């Protein structure tokens, strides 16, 4: 989030700045919680935030689980945030710069939890978008499945899993697959997520895997192999190509989250709510701009080195 916002309509962006969140997406989790109250459970102890950078969801978790005024870590409550990218520290959150698909990461989390299972796992991760819709949707689903692999190894029975999805062509296949692991799957759209975006969240309630299935992370098994026997991942045996058949699909219940009185992320606001109006342009960005891979290309372009010369 930069200092000046081009997008005047984005009240959530302003609100995030005001409340010290690193990204506007914090409100997505808050609004999901307004609907499902998974973070209001007094028994909530161990939570995992996957693909956590820059950390706005971890901030929400931290504020929900810990009283800001008491500066002592509860022995029982633990938040672990995992990402491949480094993250600046957040109070009460243990950050791990690690690969969520690696068994070592699982071991480290379990270690932090004293070998107890997690109550709640979430992921707001999204891969780079290429513009090839089918590939982008596939990679996003693979990311969810990777998060889910770790989740199945760490989540207690009855636990909750929440993840970002893009509702594209094959989203119903994902719903169908998740149905084998959880009692209830809901497709939730917080009001802070733009209506013009395909983004939504799967809220998977009541973790309940098949009793015969034991999840086991291994660097040499594919996501597909991991879920063999769970039985969900399509009736395909790995290393055998099957004939085309329409795959199992189901449509998850849709639920809009956040009250109708909350801000509309598609709207342009003129008269700003007073709580926000005063603070806007003066706030510094909470999280510095990222370091994109194409930084050097941008520098070359700015200095005129990429101007067409042939």
């Amino acid at each position, binding site marked *: 989030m930069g200092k000046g916002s081009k997008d005047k309509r984005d009240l959530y962006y302003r609100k995030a700045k005001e409340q010290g969140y690193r990204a506007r997406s914090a409100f997505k989790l808050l609004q999901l919680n307004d609907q499902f109250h998974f973070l209001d459970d007094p028994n909530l102890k161990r939570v995992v935030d996957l693909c956590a950078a820059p950390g706005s969801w971890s901030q929400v978790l931290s504020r929900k689980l810990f009283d800001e005024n008491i500066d002592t870590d509860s022995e029982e409550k633990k938040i672990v945030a995992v990402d491949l990218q480094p993250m600046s520290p957040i109070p009460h959150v243990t950050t791990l710069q690690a690969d969520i698909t690696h068994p070592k990461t699982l071991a480290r989390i379990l270690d932090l939890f004293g070998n107890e299972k997690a109550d709640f796992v979430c992921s707001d991760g999204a891969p780079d978008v290429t513009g090839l819709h089918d590939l982008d949707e596939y990679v996003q689903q693979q990311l969810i499945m990777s998060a889910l692999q770790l989740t199945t190894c760490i989540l207690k029975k009855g636990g909750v899993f929440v993840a970002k999805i893009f509702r594209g062509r094959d989203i119903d296949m994902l719903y169908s697959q998740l149905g084998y692991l959880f009692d209830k799957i809901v497709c939730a759209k917080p009001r802070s997520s733009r209506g013009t975006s395909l983004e939504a969240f799967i809220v998977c309630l009541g973790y309940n895997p098949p009793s015969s299935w034991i999840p086991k992370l291994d660097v040499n098994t594919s996501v597909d192999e991991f879920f063999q026997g769970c039985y969900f991942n399509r009736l395909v045996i790995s290393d055998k190509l099957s004939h085309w058949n329409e795959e199992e699909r189901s449509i998850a219940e*849709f639920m809009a989250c956040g009250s109708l009185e909350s801000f509309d992320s*598609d709207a342009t606001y003129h008269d700003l709510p007073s709580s926000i109006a005063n603070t806007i342009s003066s706030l510094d960005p909470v999280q510095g701009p990222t370091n994109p891979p194409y930084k050097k290309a941008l520098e070359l372009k700015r200095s005129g080195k990429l101007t067409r010369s042939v």
Partner: protein
Amino acid sequence: MKDVSHYGPALCTKFHNDYVLAGYGPFVHVYDYRSNTLISKCRMFHKNKVHGISISAGEEVLAYGARSISVVRFEDILKNESLVDSEKINSDWVTNGEFSSDGSQVYLLTCYNKVLICDLSCEVLSSKSLRGERSILYSGMIKVFAPDKVYISAGTVMGGIIIWDLFSETKIHNLLGHEGSIFYVTLSNNGSFVASCSDDRSIRLWDLDTGEELSVGWSHTARIWNLKFFDNDTKLISVSEDCTCRVWTVMESQKNITELSISNIYDVHLSKNIWGVDVKEDDMIAVTSGNDGRLKLIDLHLERHGDEETSFNLDEISQQLDIVFDKNETIKGFQGFSFGIVIITSLGKILQFRNTTKQWKLLLTDENFVAYSITNGIQAQNIVVFSNNKKDILLIRFSENGDEVMHVEQHHTTELSKTNNCLVTEYDEHSFLLTLESPNPRDKLLCLEIDFQDLKIKTKHCFNKPENFASSCLASFQNFVLVGSRFSTLAIFNLLNDDDEPFIIRRLCPGDTTTSIKFVENKNDSTVFSVTNRDGYYDFIELTKSNCESPHPPFSYKILHSNKMMKGFLEGAFFNSNGEYITYGFKSSLFYLYNETNCYELASEVCGGAHRQWKLNNVNDGHILMYIKSSRLHLRKMYHSVFPETLEKGIHGREIRDISICPEASADTDGNFKGGHIFCTASEDTTIKLGYFDNKTGRIRNFWTQRKHISGLQRCRFINEKLMISASAREELFLWELNDKYDKRPYVTIRQTLPTSTNNPDLRIMDFDVKFVSQSGDFILITVYSDSAIKIWYYKEEENKFELITEGRYKTCCIFNVALVALKNQLFVVISPTDGYVVIYNVTEYVPFTIDVTSGDLADNKLDTLVSGLPMPVLQLQVHQSGIKSLDYAVDTMRTSAAILTGGDDNGLGLSYLTLDAVNTPALKASDFIDSAASSTITSGILINGGEEAITTSVDQIVRAWKITEGKLTLADEKYTTVADTGSLDIISNNDNTEFDKTLLIGGVGLSLWRK
């Protein structure tokens, strides 16, 4: 529902003998690229898109895409419309596929860096992988060097490229250097090099033996998607998100350093993404395939004709001719002909260069043309024209082959005090026109008619020069001379009467200098001209002759079409033999020749920019660009391509947000665009395209790409057979007028722009609707905005003005859709905001019209127009949980009830009824709601057949047909569309006596034409 045609992303392309194969959605298209014919369109997969194609020596074809693969005979692709029965599914995404050395097996690389070895019936024989390396890949490549030497290169998401040996399953290299995900990696045929590209926008060249990074190539301005070595691994071709294809030279310098250097750039696709590229080495041509659905052939042979680029300075000419030039002597002017060129120096030496002999020849030296001269020519007649500032003109005519000077003629004129400008244009079969202008504003504009044969002056005209006039281009038609000037002005003089005041058109566009005027076509008493302006604008104007006995003014004029080039200077334009509009000019240091109809660069030359002497002339088989750079005369021939320029022209390269089909013209259809319809598409790329589709074949033809909007389009809709409205963010709403009476193409221009609420508007206009005043061109327009504003405007055709009559605001949320619904004598506004409600306003008393109870049109009863606030809603009903993305309605025959169809972000499809009872009390009732009518957002829904049926599109890529009986929706049909991000739909009825009575256009990333 039957699919007829599809235009959309072409993800891969490949040469095979005289064919080009392309993955086009789930289809493989096969073209004969020499004759530019589509030979076969064969469906390979049920749903998945074809991402890659490999062909074996034995003519087996391996197609793969997503999790699908298929191995079929090439001849079967040519013979069949569908081979989906051969489709096989893998459990993971297939990133790459290749035949084994002897063609008996296929290797499939999955996105988890595993290779399946299969036989040709797709039975898996074995699988190979590299232990511990299975993170997801965006790219990877199988390279078969020999039966027992197969290398896998895997591009990871973390910047590393892992090269491993397939059979030993051992790692050879992990190449580190890139930042971000690797998007493509390829190995050279000779086994020396690896080339790769990543999110960092560089191309890196590596030594395959040592794993050393040899060179980094920077040039692309966005991500690079595909690379290929060619020309014995001495060159590399790359294609990118930036819509260019670039050629690189792999150079080995003396010190044994191998470098990658950029050698050519081709700007050939529409924003954004070129996905595929292949090169046919024996022809030295490339084919590229893009998100715009275009298949573009690019001639890589820079010296196919041998004389593409030549240059001279006076020293070189001096040596060849054995004459001496003064040390201060420079080239002052040049003119190109099919035989070669003619130049004049600052000391009046006139020299000729002939293509056949490659020799220079001094023709004559004329003292009169020392220091100041202007050079012109009539190319078709081989006549060169020189003029000076002393009122002299010198004319030379050459023989047809240019070998001989046939005639030389000199004239001195006395009518002007001085001459500083001279222009020429062909006039009739025997003569051309030459204008001379003086810097003195009181002088006349002199126009000479000169005979082609004897170069004598046939007639002489002294016209009254308009004020503020500086002639810049010339054209003639019938007995008129059209002269373009600065201040985007055009003056038309009558050759039959010198004393007639010229007919002047001022301020044709916002630019300054008029750079060209070209006759385009005529019909009845009207003639169309294309007029270009240096500042990038071009207009098509229609001149219509007056019918009166002594007509004054002799014409009326109308702008038929207006548009602007993206950037740079526009120096001229013409139509080529295919009826495509070709523009030329400068973009920074580049001269370009551009196909404006289909939007791609034809040729370009880095000449240093517009500030130099230059000229573009037609020659037999193309054009010649002449320019001076660092005292050198450069001759650059731009030949017509020896290959077809495109195999598919394509459409928008980004999402189509709205589609509108022009309704059948009510009268005066003379068959120009019969058998199909004119339609427009509004895209995320900020352009609107005007095209035509053929109902039966589904073939689409592009006419224009309008660039008036500066933000991504939201809506476009024909509101009758000649008016169209488009709307987008930044409060942009334009009223366009279509003219389809000419034979060659329709024209479209902006008639009016809607006023904005502030000078720096940041609101998005989300939707609009109109209602016409009965038997009139006047209408009411309602617009809804992202800040919940609702505005009603009155458009009066005669005054050409939008007048605000009502405004108000719903709440603070964004409004996605609006409709004006007339029931009995009441007028209602229906809106659908992001809160999921259908909200009804009764605006009957707020518009200065009554409602015609039989037609629902507005009736003009001369009521006063009063600006007033919008009333409170009369009815509100929550139909959806969140944003309503589509809204359509159908009024029953009694006009007492309207069915309202709403599609939501909540996957729901709602059917509600707005009804009026006997005392005109409105009621709104939910009649049916299907909560999982799609597995993702429903983006458009249209009621057809009077509201008895509906068609919906949704992001799950399923088009659904619904039956509506007694207020209930039932699914009648559903069919998958390959158009991703499916977001727009328009439907028109056919009367072509086939089994299909409707044509559907489905838009998103691509465009499909279906019949129902």
